[in-house]
C-alpha cells in the first residue's frame, strides 16, 4: 500500500461531521471485494476462451502454464490491491441528520444521505460475507438510480446496531447522550503510518436498542419450489427440451440440439434465482417498519419504514390460478428498476388469498373499508361491478375483447384499487397520499367508443397502476376527484419522522402495531365503504 495519500488534505472538508465521528469499514472488506474482481476477470477470460477451446488448450502447452499462473497472480494482486486502497480511502459517519460517505481513490466522492428522506434500509449478506460474519448495509434515499448509500462490509452485529440507529434517527428520535462516540473510534488519525491500522471498526456505542420484531408470515419452502416450477418458465423449459429432442431425432445428430442450451441456462437461471431469492421468506412488523428476510445464498433483511410503500401489486399468472396463489410486489422509492429489482420489491413471493390480505395489511394497515374480504374477492377474482367496482363499459369489448370485464376501479377512503387482466389477473393498490401525478389518455379508437384510460404515476418499480377503457366521463370525474383526495390525504400524511408525533418515547416503548395475522385488516377507523366514482 504505497498510496497512503493523506485523506482530508485535498478533500473538501465536510464540516457537519465532527472529526471523531468518522468510521471505517471492516478490514476484511478488501479481501471480499477483491475476490469479486478476481472472479469477474476470470469469468470474462473463461467466456472468451470457451469460444475456441482448442486454441485455449494450445496456449497452455509448455511454458503456457507459467504465463497463465503469472497472469492470474497479477490479476489477483491488482484486484486485491485496488480493493485495499479503496477500503483505505473509504470512511463513513452517522450524524443526527444524515449519513456521510466518502469514497474514491482518484476521484473522491462525498455523499450525504438525509435521514428524513430514508426510504429503506437493507442488510445484505452475500455468501462469502456470511461465511465470515460480515454484512453490507444499504440505505435507499429515493434519488434515482445509484443514489443508494452502501456501507460494505461491516460486522454483522455492527450492521444491526447501525440499522437500529439509522431507523430511530429517521423516525425522529433523538440520541440519548450528546457525545456520540469516544475518540478511540475516530478516523481522526488521518496521517497515521500506513502499516498500522489507523482506525478501529468497533461498533459505536449502543444508542438505540433494536426495535422488537413480530413475525407475521413465513413462506413454506415446498410451496415456493412448487409455485416456481408451476410457471410459464417451466412451460418454456419443456417446450425447449421438446424442440431439442425433435431436432435431434429429425436430423439424426445430437449436436443439432445444442442450440437450446443457452435457452435452458436462461430459464434454469431464472427458476433458480426465483427460488434462491424467495427462500425462507419471512415478514415481520416492528416499530421501525416492516422487515422482510429472504434469500438462500445471499441473505437479505429489508426494513421499509411506515408509509414508504408507494404502491402494491397483487398478480396471478395463468398457471397459479388452480392453486390460488398470488405474488405481491411493492414500489418503494429507491428500489428502482435494476438488476436487483426482483429481489427487493417482493412483499410475498407466493401467497394464498388470506396471506395476500395479511401482506397488504402489513404495509397499508387501513384499506379504508369496513369489511375487506368482499373487496378482495371482487378485486382478485371479480368482474364487472362486483364489490362496488366501477367497471369498463360494454363498449370496451371492442378494444379488449378478452379482458374488458376485468378493467375496474374502486376508491376507498384510503386507497385506489385498480383491477385488470383476465388471463393474468392483476390488482394494484395506491394509497391516496402516495399518488405522484395523474393522467388521462385516449386513443382514436377509444375516442370513438367514448372511452378513456386513467393512469396513476407512481415511483419507479414493478407497479404501474392504471385503469384502461373506462367510460370517458367516469375517467374524467375520477381524475378530478382523485386529485382532490390525494391532496387531502397528503396534508394529513405523517410518515416522515414518523415517531416524532408521539410523546418522545424510548424506541422500544414506541407504539407497536399489534400483529394479528388471523385478523389482518381490521381497520382502526371503521369507515363505511365509500361509493365508487361517478
Amino acid at each position, binding site marked *: 500500500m504505497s498510496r497512503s495519500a493523506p485523506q482530508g488534505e485535498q478533500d473538501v472538508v465536510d464540516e457537519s461531521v465532527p472529526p471523531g465521528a468518522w468510521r471505517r469499514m471492516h478490514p476484511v472488506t478488501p479481501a471480499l471485494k477483491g475476490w469479486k474482481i478476481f472472479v469477474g476477470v476470470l469469468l470474462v477470460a473463461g467466456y472468451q476462451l470457451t469460444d475456441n477451446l482448442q486454441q485455449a488448450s494450445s496456449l497452455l502447452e509448455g511454458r503456457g502454464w507459467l504465463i497463465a499462473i503469472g497472469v492470474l497472480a497479477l490479476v489477483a494482486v491488482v484486484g486485491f490491491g485496488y480493493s485495499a486502497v479503496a477500503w483505505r480511502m473509504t470512511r463513513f459517519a452517522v450524524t443526527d441528520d444524515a449519513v456521510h460517505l466518502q469514497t474514491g481513490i482518484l476521484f473522491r466522492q462525498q455523499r450525504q444521505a438525509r435521514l428524513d428522506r430514508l426510504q429503506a434500509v437493507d442488510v445484505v449478506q452475500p455468501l462469502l460475507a456470511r461465511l465470515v460474519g460480515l454484512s453490507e448495509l444499504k440505505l435507499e434515499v429515493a434519488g434515482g438510480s445509484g443514489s443508494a448509500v452502501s456501507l460494505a462490509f461491516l460486522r454483522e452485529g455492527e450492521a444491526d446496531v447501525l440499522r437500529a440507529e439509522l431507523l430511530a434517527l429517521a423516525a425522529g428520535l433523538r440520541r440519548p447522550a450528546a457525545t456520540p462516540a469516544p475518540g478511540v473510534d475516530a478516523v481522526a488519525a488521518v496521517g497515521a503510518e500506513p502499516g498500522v491500522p489507523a482506525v478501529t471498526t468497533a461498533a459505536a456505542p449502543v444508542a438505540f436498542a433494536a426495535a422488537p420484531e413480530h413475525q407475521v408470515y413465513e413462506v413454506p419452502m415446498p410451496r415456493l419450489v412448487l409455485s416456481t416450477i408451476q410457471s410459464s418458465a417451466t412451460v418454456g423449459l419443456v417446450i425447449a427440451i421438446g424442440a431439442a429432442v425433435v431436432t435431434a431425432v429429425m436430423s439424426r445428430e445430437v449436436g443439432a440440439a445444442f442450440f437450446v442450451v443457452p435457452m435452458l441456462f436462461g430459464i434454469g437461471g431464472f427458476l433458480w434465482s426465483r427460488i434462491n431469492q424467495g427462500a425462507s421468506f419471512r415478514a415481520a412488523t416492528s416499530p421501525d417498519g416492516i422487515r422482510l428476510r429472504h434469500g438462500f445464498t445471499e441473505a437479505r433483511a429489508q426494513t421499509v419504514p411506515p408509509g*414508504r410503500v408507494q404502491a402494491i401489486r397483487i398478480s396471478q399468472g395463468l398457471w397459479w390460478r388452480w392453486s390460488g396463489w398470488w405474488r405481491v410486489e411493492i414500489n418503494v422509492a429507491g428500489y428502482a428498476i435494476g438488476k436487483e429489482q426482483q429481489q427487493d420489491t417482493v412483499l410475498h413471493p407466493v401467497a394464498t388469498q388470506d396471506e395476500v390480505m395479511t401482506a397488504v395489511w402489513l404495509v397499508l394497515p387501513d384499506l379504508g373499508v369496513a369489511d375487506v374480504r368482499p373487496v378482495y374477492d371482487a378485486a382478485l377474482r371479480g368482474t364487472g361491478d362486483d364489490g362496488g367496482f366501477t367497471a369498463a363499459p360494454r363498449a370496451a369489448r371492442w378494444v379488449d375483447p378478452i379482458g374488458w370485464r376485468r378493467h375496474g376501479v374502486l376508491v376507498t377512503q384510503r386507497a385506489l384499487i385498480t383491477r385488470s387482466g383476465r388471463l393474468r389477473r392483476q390488482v394494484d393498490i395506491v394509497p391516496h397520499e402516495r*399518488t405522484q401525478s395523474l*393522467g388521462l*389518455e*385516449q386513443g382514436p379508437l377509444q375516442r370513438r367508443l367514448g372511452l378513456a384510460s386513467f393512469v396513476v404515476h407512481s415511483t419507479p418499480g414493478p407497479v404501474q397502476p392504471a385503469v384502461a377503457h373506462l367510460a370517458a*366521463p367516469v375517467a374524467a370525474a375520477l*381524475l378530478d376527484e382523485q*386529485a382532490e383526495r390525494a391532496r387531502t390525504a397528503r396534508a394529513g400524511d405523517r410518515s416522515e419522522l414518523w415517531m416524532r408525533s408521539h410523546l418522545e418515547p424510548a424506541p422500544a416503548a414506541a407504539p407497536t402495531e399489534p400483529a394479528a395475522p388471523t385478523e389482518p385488516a381490521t381497520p382502526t377507523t371503521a369507515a363505511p365503504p365509500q361509493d365508487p366514482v361517478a
Partner: protein
Amino acid sequence: MTSDATVPTADGTRDPFAPLDVTWTPVSTRLARARLTVLALWFGPLVLAGVVVAVATGEPWVWVWPGVTAALAAWQSWLIPRQVRAMAYAERAEDLLIRRGILFRTLVVVPYGRMQYVDVTAGPLARRFRIASVQLHTASPGTGASIEGLPPQEAARLRDRLASRGESRLAGL
C-alpha cells in the same frame, strides 16, 4: 381557444379532456413556426436533391422520390400547427394541468406538492423564436410533464411560481 377540445363529443357528454372551471393557456404559436423551420431544414434539401436528381436523369419515375418527400413535408406542415394548438396548460390552485395530442390525447395533473424540481431549457433555435420549454419532475418517471413553446418570461414566471408553490406544499414522497 382555437382547439377543438371545448366542442362536446359525439354523444353529447362533456369532453373528458376539458375539465370544467379551468382556463387553458395555449402555448405560443411560435412553437409551430420553430417546428416548421426544423421541418423545412430537414425536408427542403431532401426535396431539392430529389428534384435535381430527377431533372438530371430525366427519367419520369425518379420524380417519385421528391414527390413522396414533398407529400410527407406537406402532411407534417399541416399537422404541426394543429398539434401545437392542441397543447395547453392550466394552473389551478393546487395542481398544474397539461394537455396535448389530437389523435392520441393525454392530460396530466401534477400536484405542486409533488414536484421535485423544474427544468427550463431553450436551444439555439428555440431562443431565436423566443420560446423555452419547462419540464416538471416528480418522483415518478411516468409523469412526463413538459410544456414546450412558452415565451421566456412566461417560462421564468411559471418556473418561479411552481418553485414557490412546490415549496409551500413541501412533502417527501
